[in-house]
């Protein structure tokens, strides 16, 4: 592209000597046609990127062997047993949630949540270019979910988890007998509920209020134009997905600070 800029650049230079370099470049760019020939410009760029990738892959594959351990032995369970690295974010969620959520509902919600993004994000700005300012909420929720809740959890799962899924620094001795003191309690108990039925009701109230009351109150108190435009259905979907994402963080923080095991317990049916 540099060569296609050159003649226009020098032409302008002759005409308006006083214009600054930055303005001249902008002016030159705005006068260029919007489209360029795919051959050679795009095909060249793709070809170069492809060559670099294939070269890197070849070198990597010649120097580093794909893993191959002992033959499968169903009677010998390794400790820890790790899922493939790209699923370790979900396995890491097993620390905080029961398998029905960490292994099934959470991934399903991620998939469905991703699919509805184009239909609930009605902000017309930021279509086709990078911008943080014009879509802070969308960017913030997506990037936080992708980076903090997905990528960071994978790094923890790959490098920081050892026997018993305990936390180990990379390179540290994996003591299979490491015991971590845990005094896990359920949140309703911490809040004073002592009977089983009382705890169940408190837990359900907490979860119910979190998912419905907060968005509803927010909707009523902060009557903003964008809320009307969004409409109740989209608002409901967005807030459900958003509070689910946030809820994962809430539960993690509750675990780290108050050693909370469950927020809601319905014996033999469902625990959150």
């Amino acid at each position: 592209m540099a060569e296609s800029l050159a003649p226009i650049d020098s032409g302008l230079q002759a005409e308006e000597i006083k214009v600054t370099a930055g303005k001249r470049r902008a002016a030159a760019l705005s006068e260029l046609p919007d489209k360029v020939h795919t051959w050679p410009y795009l095909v060249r760029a793709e070809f170069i990127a492809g060559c670099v990738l294939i070269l890197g892959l070849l070198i990597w594959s010649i120097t580093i062997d794909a893993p191959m351990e002992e033959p499968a032995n169903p009677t010998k369970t390794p400790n820890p047993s790790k899922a493939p690295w790209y699923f370790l974010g979900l396995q890491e969620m097993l620390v905080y949630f029961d398998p029905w959520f960490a292994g099934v509902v959470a991934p399903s919600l991620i998939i469905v949540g991703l699919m509805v993004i184009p239909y609930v994000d009605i902000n017309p700005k930021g279509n086709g270019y990078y911008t943080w300012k014009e879509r802070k909420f969308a960017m913030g929720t997506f990037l936080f979910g992708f980076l903090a809740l997905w990528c960071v959890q994978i790094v923890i799962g790959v490098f920081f988890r050892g026997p018993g899924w305990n936390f180990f620094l990379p390179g540290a001795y994996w003591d299979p007998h490491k015991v971590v003191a845990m005094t896990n309690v359920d949140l309703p108990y911490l809040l004073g509920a002592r009977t089983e039925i009382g705890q169940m009701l408190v837990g359900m109230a907490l979860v119910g209020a979190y998912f419905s009351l907060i968005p509803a109150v927010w909707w009523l108190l902060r009557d903003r134009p964008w809320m009307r435009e969004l409409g109740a259905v989209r608002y409901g979907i967005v807030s459900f997905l958003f509070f689910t994402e946030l809820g994962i963080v809430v539960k993690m923080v509750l675990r780290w600070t108050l050693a909370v095991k469950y927020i809601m317990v319905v014996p033999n049916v469902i625990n959150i």
Partner: protein
Amino acid sequence: MPDAKKPPESPSAPSKKESSLARLFTSPAWRSIFRHGYEDSPRNRVLQVSANVWLHLHPSKTRRHGIRYRHTWCAGGLTFLLYLVTVVTGVVLMFYYRPVQEYAYWDVKYLDFDVPFGFLMRNMHRWAAHGMVLFIWLHMLRVFMTGSYKPPREFNWVVGVNLLVLTLLLSFTGYLLPWDQLAIWAVTVGTNMARATPLLGHQGPFGPQLGMTARYDARSFLTAGTLVGAPTLLRFYVLHCIFIPIIASILMILHFWRIRKDGGISGPL
């Protein structure tokens, strides 16, 4: 590189002065394959793309910003390239690999140590698959950050999410095939989650109430039994080599076609 001083091509026989290369490019055989001239003219630039079945996935002209690495990171294209690498190397592996409990592990060992370039085919297949997972995430990240899922590209984003799921399933089903300790235990951990599927898993919420048992629930459907065993290996092999690649390929064709129908690479305006 094309020679600027070369006289304009003519369909008639080349004159004595022309180089042998130019004669090749104007020879009837060459012209029967490539229906356009070789010299660098706007017309040929367009034909180079539109008269080539592979390249005409592209429009013959592209919006200026769309060809910049900093806009697309080339991540979608490189995901596709890695997919092609796994297809080619995967077919080579299929010549030697048998999805049978007694043979699978040793077939892979044989590939690694005895088959000429077998280790390279297996390593490339494995690492390209991991690379594909990485690049598809990068691609999704960039599509999100440029807001390229906004109208008119909503549906192509949905197609993309389906491709993401299929890519992960491809990787996951392939993980089992070497039939080593890593393979069966990773797949055991993964499929164990399905036990806890609400309603459909025998340990999930409302599962037992609906009559799910270890022999008959979401997990046994995936693993073809109560544990990861020989039937699982065969099931994952068929999914990995036939079923998922076909669906993924169809969706990729749809994805690429939609990019053009949706107005090419997204951009400001």
